[in-house]
């Protein structure tokens, strides 16, 4: 039900109760309600006359009787509406019983009285007591109407706040919405406020005014609020809502006047997020005793807190996205440059870029130069370089194992701060990235990023070094295999056979390519001296395998599964094995697995020729060529695959051996055939009458 309908009902009810016409009019005497008539009357013309005849209506300040003609009275009471409009409640008409006759005579004698005389039966005749009671009741009616309007003021204000809150919540995710818009809206809703502002927490105890609605905005923005000082500084300390009135004489106001603000009352509310004060919401009014609504202010401060959290999450998400895409770009270039030093240059330059460092350097161990560390540096003075490099080396390279992979802060002798980030991968330390910084706080947000960069650098260097060591080891093993073939043909044969068995059996038991490669290398390397090899081999897996192998030879005991496999194979190809080891390996479950695998494999080999009569003849041809050319069994198998048109990779796959081994065999075959390439080899074998099926 709206206020108008309630008002009309109230007015109708009282008109019946008082037995009087009652109506509400504005200052221009226009009707604001329908006229309420007494029980027995309905004289609209009379009511209009009554309203028109009230003298000086706008001067009426309280509920009173007014004479419209001498002795003829109406009741009038002023009412203020929710929109601050001034209305008048009119009730009438009545006359005191003791002057009724005198009134009648007056009406008869005066022209302006004619209309009232004609409707005299509608004029209520009252005693003095009744007149007083009617005034009191009419007073009640005017108070009720006034309350009705007053309540409507609260309802309107409440609805306004709800609408405003709804608007703010709906717009929080809108790009155009910001705290300036919000406080301007709040100021518009509270017209008595001459300014509203927000001081935002920066670092430690510093708060800066960053949002302001009101005069002198340009001068106020950027002002710092200090802890404990002035009105606002006090709120930072107490962390509680405060307000001040009658402050025009307060000495603390001098600063405000300097910036063109002269509030007479002021409020300040801390903006809390969790248990931290993220900002201050403040406002001022030129009224001496402005009634600030602490609930409204607190709701606004909470909303600002929510908005700040949302903004900070958004910024943080953007920041992380930026870091991630930058990291991707950096890592991508690291994998492209194909050179360890260039990977290190990237780390140095990115360190300087990201932390705006005064200098950046990388201390790293060079793979080719065993007894040296190198320090690559940008921005550090030469005299500092040597001392810092040695100190850094002692702190990070004196232990072989990497204990810490996180970065750490270090203070140089001249007081400069350095952030030192190990470049690691798989517990191996490749180097240390050092960046000259201004403060620890500057680095903290970037520590996860720098750690990732350190690991990315580690991975890139690991891969490049692995590629390099594999290439150099492959050359070395190749050379040693050829030497073996030339000088120790029996050992060479055993080595070739061992490789063949390893390639097949290793796949059967699921060894990875690094382990297979190490075992294949070992098939050649075991024929050479330990002292000669360990300095020359760079591949980690091969080196470790050979160390375990030599140790097992020395202790007559095998403590490593890969070495156990190596001994099983070496035993199988007829290599002489120390008795305790031989005993140990025959008791090992791996030995049984190997024997079973080999039997299956042998069965498979002898099953193929079954039922194929021509193969017997082929076998004879093969034997003849093998004998003529002095080819090994394996070389014969490789040749057979070459004649079938297979390339090296396909041959490696079909015979379960590595590409590298196929290449070795091919070199030998071409040499023995006295030709320089595969096509000549094929032609020569065909000339000799060999046709593969």
């Amino acid at each position, binding site marked *: 039900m709206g206020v108008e309908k309630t008002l009309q009902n109230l007015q109708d009810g009282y008109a019946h109760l008082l037995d009087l016409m009652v109506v509400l009019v504005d200052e221009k005497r226009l009707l604001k309600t329908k006229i309420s008539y007494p029980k027995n009357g309905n004289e609209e013309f009379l009511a209009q006359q009554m309203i028109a005849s009230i003298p000086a209506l706008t001067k009426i300040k309280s509920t009173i009787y007014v004479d419209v003609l001498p002795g003829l009275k109406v009741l009038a009471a002023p009412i203020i509406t929710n929109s601050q409009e001034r209305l008048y409640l009119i009730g009438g008409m009545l006359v005191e019983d003791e002057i009724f006759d005198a009134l009648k005579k007056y009406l008869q004698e005066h022209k302006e009285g004619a209309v009232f005389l004609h409707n005299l039966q509608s004029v209520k005749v009252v005693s003095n007591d009744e007149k007083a009671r009617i005034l009191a009741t009419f007073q009640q009616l005017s108070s009720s109407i006034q309350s009705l309007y007053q309540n409507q003021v609260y309802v309107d204000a409440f609805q306004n706040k709800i609408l405003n809150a709804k608007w703010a919540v709906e717009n929080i995710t809108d790009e155009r919405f910001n705290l300036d818009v919000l406080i301007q809206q709040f100021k518009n809703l509270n017209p008595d406020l001459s300014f509203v502002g927000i001081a935002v927490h920066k670092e430690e105890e510093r708060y800066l005014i960053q949002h302001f609605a009101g005069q002198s905005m340009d001068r106020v923005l950027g002002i710092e609020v200090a802890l404990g000082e002035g009105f606002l500084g006090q709120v930072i300390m107490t962390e509680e809502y405060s307000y001040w009135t009658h402050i025009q004489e307060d000495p603390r106001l001098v600063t405000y006047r300097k910036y063109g603000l002269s509030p007479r009352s002021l409020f300040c509310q801390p903006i809390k997020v969790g248990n931290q004060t993220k900002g201050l919401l403040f406002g001022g009014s030129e009224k001496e005793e402005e009634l600030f609504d602490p609930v409204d202010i607190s709701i606004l401060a909470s909303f600002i807190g929510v908005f700040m959290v949302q903004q900070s999450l958004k910024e943080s998400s953007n920041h992380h996205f930026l870091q991630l895409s930058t990291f991707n770009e950096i890592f991508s270039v690291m994998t492209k440059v194909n050179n360890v030093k260039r990977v290190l240059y990237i780390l140095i330059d990115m360190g300087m870029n990201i932390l705006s460092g005064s200098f950046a350097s990388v201390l790293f161990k060079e793979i080719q130069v*065993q007894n040296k560390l190198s320090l690559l540096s940008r921005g550090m003075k030469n005299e500092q370089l040597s001392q810092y*490099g040695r100190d850094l080396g002692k702190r990070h390279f004196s232990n072989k194992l990497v204990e810490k992979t996180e970065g750490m802060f270090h203070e140089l002798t001249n007081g400069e701060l350095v952030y030192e980030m190990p470049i690691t991968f798989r517990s191996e330390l490749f180097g240390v990235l050092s960046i000259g910084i201004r403060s620890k706080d500057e680095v903290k947000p970037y520590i996860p990023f720098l750690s990732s960069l350190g690991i990315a650098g580690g991975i890139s260097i690991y891969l490049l070094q692995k590629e390099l060591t594999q290439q150099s080891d492959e050359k070395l093993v190749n050379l040693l295999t050829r030497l073996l073939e030339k000088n120790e043909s029996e050992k060479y044969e055993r080595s070739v056979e061992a490789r063949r068995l390893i390639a097949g059996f290793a796949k059967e038991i699921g060894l990875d390519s690094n382990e297979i490669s190490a075992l294949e290398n070992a098939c050649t390397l075991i024929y050479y001296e330990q002292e000669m090899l360990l300095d020359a081999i760079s591949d980690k897996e091969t080196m470790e395998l050979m160390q375990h192998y030599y140790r097992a030879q020395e202790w007559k005991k095998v403590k490593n599964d890969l070495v156990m496999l190596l001994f099983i194979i070496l035993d199988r190809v007829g290599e002489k094995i120390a008795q305790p080891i031989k005993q140990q390996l025959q008791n090992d479950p791996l030995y049984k697995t190997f024997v079973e695998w080999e039997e299956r494999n042998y069965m498979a080999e002898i099953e193929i020729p079954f039922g194929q009569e021509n193969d017997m003849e082929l076998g004879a041809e093969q034997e003849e060529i093998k004998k003529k050319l002095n080819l090994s069994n394996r070389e014969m198998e490789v040749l057979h695959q070459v004649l079938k048109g297979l390339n090296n990779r396909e041959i490696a796959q079909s015979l379960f051996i590595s590409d590298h081994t196929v290449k070795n065999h091919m070199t030998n075959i071409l040499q023995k055939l006295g030709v320089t390439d595969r096509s000549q080899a094929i032609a020569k074998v065909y000339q000799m009458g060999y046709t593969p099926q």
Partner: protein
Amino acid sequence: MLQFNPLKVECTLFFEENPYTLETAEGLALRLGRKTAELVLILEHLVTDSILEKIGDGEQAIYRYVQPDNFQIPREFIWE
């Protein structure tokens, strides 16, 4: 907030990937698909950081990558 300028990173990475490049700001802008004006500021920063060297002045100035200094530390100093 610290400086974390994506364009600066992009520009540095370009020179690290192409360390023998000699190029004007305009040429680089063309290669990176950026505006010359914004690139010039970044290049000046990189010159200040000694990551790049500037040869000549004005629009014809050429930028090139400068490798960090290399200093050898004998290992015995570390494991003495």
